């Protein structure tokens, strides 16, 4: 919890410093006070945030972000083609899908990635069942979503974090500590990821 608050404070202060573009004590003081107030205001959010990823997790996240840029460009080209050459311009579908994501942050990440790629918008996500309602511009874009490689990347990220959580819990047990709140994101349970053909 404290780790989260500290990290959030550092990020906010760094963002403030970059935006103001100057380092002097007055500005830094105002930034620090503002960052502290923001952290205090959002302190209840702490337990809901995912655990800090390991170096391996961060590398995997960076790799997924690089892939994401490529997918966004590809999706833009697809939508432009549909817009210019398809008659009628759109044959939209509502797609109900249940990707095997176990954590809430994984679902949020996936929903955001779906919406940021033009051609598909996440309309709703059921937090209980993990069912997504997605609006897609046409049938092909919808089917591509079902076999999107990103799902595997997020499942791998979830596993990396779950491994870390288990390790920390074991360390805690070894030292006789109580490690509560590690499963607040639903990190327990088996991985149900099956092999999918990758979205090119």
């Amino acid at each position: 919890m404290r780790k989260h608050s500290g990290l959030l404070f550092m990020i906010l202060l760094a963002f403030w410093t970059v935006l103001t573009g100057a380092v002097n004590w007055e500005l830094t003081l105002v930034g620090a006070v503002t960052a502290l107030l923001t952290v205090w205001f959002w302190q209840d959010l702490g337990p809901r945030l995912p655990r800090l990823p390991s170096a391996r997790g961060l590398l995997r996240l960076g790799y997924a972000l690089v892939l994401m840029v490529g997918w966004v460009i590809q999706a833009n080209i697809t939508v432009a083609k549909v817009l210019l050459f398809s008659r009628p311009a759109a044959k939209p579908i509502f797609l109900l899908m249940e990707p095997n994501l176990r954590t809430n942050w994984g679902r949020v990440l996936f929903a955001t990635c779906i919406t940021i790629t033009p051609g598909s918008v996440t309309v709703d996500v059921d937090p209980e069942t993990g069912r997504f309602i997605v609006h897609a511009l046409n049938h092909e874009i919808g089917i591509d979503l079902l076999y999107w490689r990103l799902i595997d990347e997020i499942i791998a990220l979830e596993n990396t974090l779950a491994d870390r959580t288990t390790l920390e819990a074991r360390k805690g047990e070894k030292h006789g500590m109580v490690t509560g709140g590690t499963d607040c994101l639903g990190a327990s349970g088996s991985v149900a990821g099956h092999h999918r053909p990758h979205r090119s």
Partner: protein
Amino acid sequence: MIKVLTNLCFCGSLLAFGLGTLGLYRFPDSYTRLHAVGMGDTLGVGLLGLGLMLLSPNWLLRLKLGGILLLFWLINPTMSHLVAKAGLLHGVKPAPGTKVRKG
């Protein structure tokens, strides 16, 4: 060389925004129009930001632009999702012929 790259970025951005605007007229309902607007919000803004970064005189300004882009790419999908969800909750009907498929 930088000027050529910058101009290419700005032209690409203009194209993305132009196609997005065309989509507003061509697509049949609010849900599909969100996809068209998404083109300008992702590739359009991204290329504009990249072009401005190339023109920037110092790294601090580039870092600021990067931060703005990152915020934009986080806020934009959230807003699109909210618009679509509000539409569905308030009974905005999709275009005729819209199918429902279980994945």
